[in-house]
């Protein structure tokens, strides 16, 4: 087996041996952490309320079933050849765009935004799929370009449009957080692909100038309120600032060692809204403290590290960019969410990957790791001439 060259076999059992099991183990650990925190957010049913803290319902069990489905997707994705993913990249991107349009037309409105699409067994959030689809599509596009083509402005028009379309669709939902996340992912892939640095400088400069104008004219009132609250959380402690004030209390009161499992007063006593979704990190921080958080950070860094390791070992451009993109996407997810609940950036509604309760994100994040694994398993694949990618 060890002599078996990577991706030279189509035997799935043989391929399993080529999977980056370290990455799988790390992701499983993160899932266990997520389930643990969701368990702590639940309640064990009892005859006379109030019931004891901690329970498999209503969040831990549904999340666990999605994770099992997610791992099935992960392994299935890993087994598929890189060629398959190259050839289907634009189709997946196209499907994601279609779903985003669909959500605009038929989607369910929740929390002031139109984000969900009912697909029978679950509420599907196309914008989550788009995050992976965009990585896939941009990886395919850039992996087919030569250095000179990458440096030409003309060749940047298509990928810019590929980013711009979903960003606009997502921003219209309105979902500012996902829009920003998509732009950051795209920026990372543009960067890793080799687009000149000065172009990033220019874009950043334009953004800095445009931001105040966007704040004034483009943002919805609730988004503006969140920015205002971010700038001065104490301005509205019981209103829009309630989230961030309570979130900081929750994290800060955890201290170095945490209050202990199921001993979090803030989250268990329901002072913290959205505790099981966007603010789940605060529940973790309250119960497990600084020490727990640092261990969690180490876990996240290890996962990104493994993604980067896949990229470096990959012998094809597509796999390299894809693996870096999946790792970067995971980092951006985690960073935006964590920085947001700590009050470092405005509350923009980005979940914590594999910790926040929510079906679509679990499935798409695991799908992303499946793509990285496919790049690992098929790292030695030599992909045909770049011109055919277009």
């Amino acid at each position, binding site marked *: 087996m060890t002599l078996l060259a990577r991706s030279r076999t189509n035997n799935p059992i043989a391929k399993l041996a080529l999977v980056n099991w370290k990455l799988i183990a790390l992701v499983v650990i993160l899932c266990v952490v997520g389930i643990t925190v969701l368990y702590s957010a639940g309640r064990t049913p009892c005859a006379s309320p109030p019931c004891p803290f901690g329970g498999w319902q209503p969040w831990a069990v549904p999340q666990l079933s999605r994770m099992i489905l997610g791992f099935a997707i992960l392994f299935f994705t890993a087994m598929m050849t890189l060629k398959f993913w190259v050839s289907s990249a634009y189709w997946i991107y196209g499907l994601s765009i279609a779903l985003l349009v669909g959500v605009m037309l038929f989607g369910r409105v929740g929390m002031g935004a139109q984000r969900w699409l009912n697909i029978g067994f679950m509420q599907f959030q196309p914008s989550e799929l788009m995050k992976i689809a965009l990585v896939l599509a941009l990886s395919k596009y850039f992996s087919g370009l030569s250095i000179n083509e990458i440096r030409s402005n003309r060749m940047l028009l298509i990928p810019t449009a590929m980013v711009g379309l979903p960003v606009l669709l997502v921003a219209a939902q309105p979902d500012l957080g996902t829009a920003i996340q998509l732009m950051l992912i795209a920026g990372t892939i543009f960067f890793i692909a080799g687009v000149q640095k000065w172009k990033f400088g220019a874009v950043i400069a334009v953004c800095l100038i445009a931001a105040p104008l966007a704040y004034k004219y483009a943002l919805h009132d609730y988004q503006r309120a969140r920015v205002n609250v971010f700038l001065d959380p104490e301005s509205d402690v019981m209103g829009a600032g309630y989230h961030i004030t309570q979130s900081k209390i929750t994290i800060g009161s955890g201290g170095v060692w945490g209050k202990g499992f199921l001993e979090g007063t803030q989250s268990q006593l329901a002072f913290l809204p959205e505790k099981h979704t966007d603010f789940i990190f605060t529940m973790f921080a309250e119960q497990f403290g600084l020490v727990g958080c640092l261990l969690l950070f180490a876990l996240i860094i290890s996962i990104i590290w493994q993604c980067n390791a896949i990229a*470096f070992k990959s012998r094809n*451009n597509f796999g390299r960019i894809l693996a870096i993109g999946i790792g970067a996407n995971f980092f951006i997810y985690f960073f935006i969410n964590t920085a947001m609940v700590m009050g470092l950036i405005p509350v923009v509604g980005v979940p914590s990957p594999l910790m926040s309760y929510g079906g679509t994100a679990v499935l798409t994040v695991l799908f992303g790791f499946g793509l990285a694994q496919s790049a690992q398993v098929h790292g030695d694949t030599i992909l045909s001439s770049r011109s055919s990618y277009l």
Partner: protein
Amino acid sequence: MRDAELVKIFTRRALLIGVGEAALFAVLVARLVQLQVFENKKYTALSDRNSIRIKLVPPARGIIYDEAGEVLADNRNAYEIQMIPEEIIMRGRKVDEILDIIGTKISLSDAEKDRIRANIAKKRPFFPVIVKSHLSWDDMAKIQINNLELPGVFVEETRRRNYPNGEVGAHTIGYVAAPDENDVRRDPSPLLSLPDFKVGKTGIERVRDSELRGSGGEIVQVVNAVGRVIETIESRRRLPTAGQNVHLTINRELQRHAFATIKEESASAIVMDIWTGEILCLASVPAFDPNMFQNEEDGIERFRELVRSPRFPFVNKAIEGLYAPGSTFKMITALAGLAEGKITASSRYHCPGYLDFADSRYHCWKHEGHGWCDLERALAESCDIFFYHIATKVNMDTIQEFSDKFGLTSLTGIELPGEKVGQIPSRAWKRNFRSEAWFTGDTIISSIGQGFNLTTPIGLAVMTSRIANGGVAVKPHIIKWDERDQQFESMGLNAQHLAMVRAGMFAVLNKPGGTARGSAINVNGALMSGKTGTSQVRRITRAERLAGRIEQEDLPWHHRNHALFVGYAPYRNPRFAVSVVVEHGRSGSGTAAPIARNLMRKTLEIYGTGV
């Protein structure tokens, strides 16, 4: 790879991205350290404030005892029905249905039901709502035995203040009621915010409020964001400290007797120990039932009714009532005359029924006159003319000085709220407050306790005590002291003068012609001395005097004379002083003296004559 340059760029940039990610992680770590280490204290405090609710537990109020250890005010257990709407709904029942069932067991009016429904609407469903307070034991039992058909309904035990003697001693004991804005402003204690908490409003309940109150306990509860109690932290439970008991010098039996004796009159009666200053009885009639403030619903209506009464049941007349002392003041005039040497034991004046002085005619109450009077007879028969003669010779300031010494012009310092200060004019007083010079005519009027003279019944009790105890500056008190605290100084007065005045007071009751001859007592040989007083509420005009005497009975009640009596007993070994003022009681000998007689007789029966 065909494009080696691209791979190089990829490697460099991947490293750059890694560095960028590391830098951003460093930011997250720094923020975590800031929140969880440096600001941990602040956030822990905020978190506690979020989730910890401190519930105050009211202390049991101290008990007020009388001199013999009988209860004057204590606490009774009362029962209160409460319901938790959520528990009713959780068992598939409706609040209205439950209220109807309760209505079949105990009386529950539609208005009460509406109030309960309004309260439920205001509160979160798991907070208990009071259905009915102040339940009798029977009503409580009716709810308790039916608790199976009344889910979410339970009986709470509460405490209410109880005054077993009702209106007897109401002014002295006072009462407690819910605090008003003034109480809240004056008193920062968080106990006042408790819905059922009561504060002392008058009497001892007010002046000893802080001692009686005790200090509150605490129950520390963990609550969730909507205020539901999750658990009670037993280790932080603090029991309340019950208030201190207060022991009064009042004798409940004597107090009851005073009320029984005064009956329908508007009057006050005081019995005081002339040596210790202990007030054994301090009655003001009519009174009110302090229990009525414990039950708000019907209490307010009774309160309004009483407030409108012309006999001022809420005024403690014994210390707040100001009356012209009338003839009870004659002892002071006599002592001033004796002190200045203007009269002696042998001084005699003729009373033809009037005295002409400086173009004015001053009348004696006895139209036909008393004939020749010495001091003893003048006091015994209350001859005005004798004192007019003193007044023409003595300096008003001396009379005022003696009034001072005998406690008529300053607060006695009794531990009750609202005491008024008496007023005996001096030359300076009239100059300052009336902008007029003092005339001898003013002294004449003052000498018999009329004119500008005003005294309180407690002031008269002090005066009488100091005459009886030979000039010891006793002061009254109503809260029991330790024995060692009782130390009053002698004022160094002429004992002979005092003895002469006392002889006159003895004659008032015990010699033929004495104005209170009919009120003499003999309890195992103990006799009472005293002095009657009848003070005019309105002047008798010259026209009326010419038209002939007007009978007091013919006047409307509020124009009738005040009736006063001061006395002490036993004559030979004095121990107790009595002071009775009957508002519009017509005459001291007719109404005040008999009340004093009954009261003193009872006092001597209770305490013995000491002979």
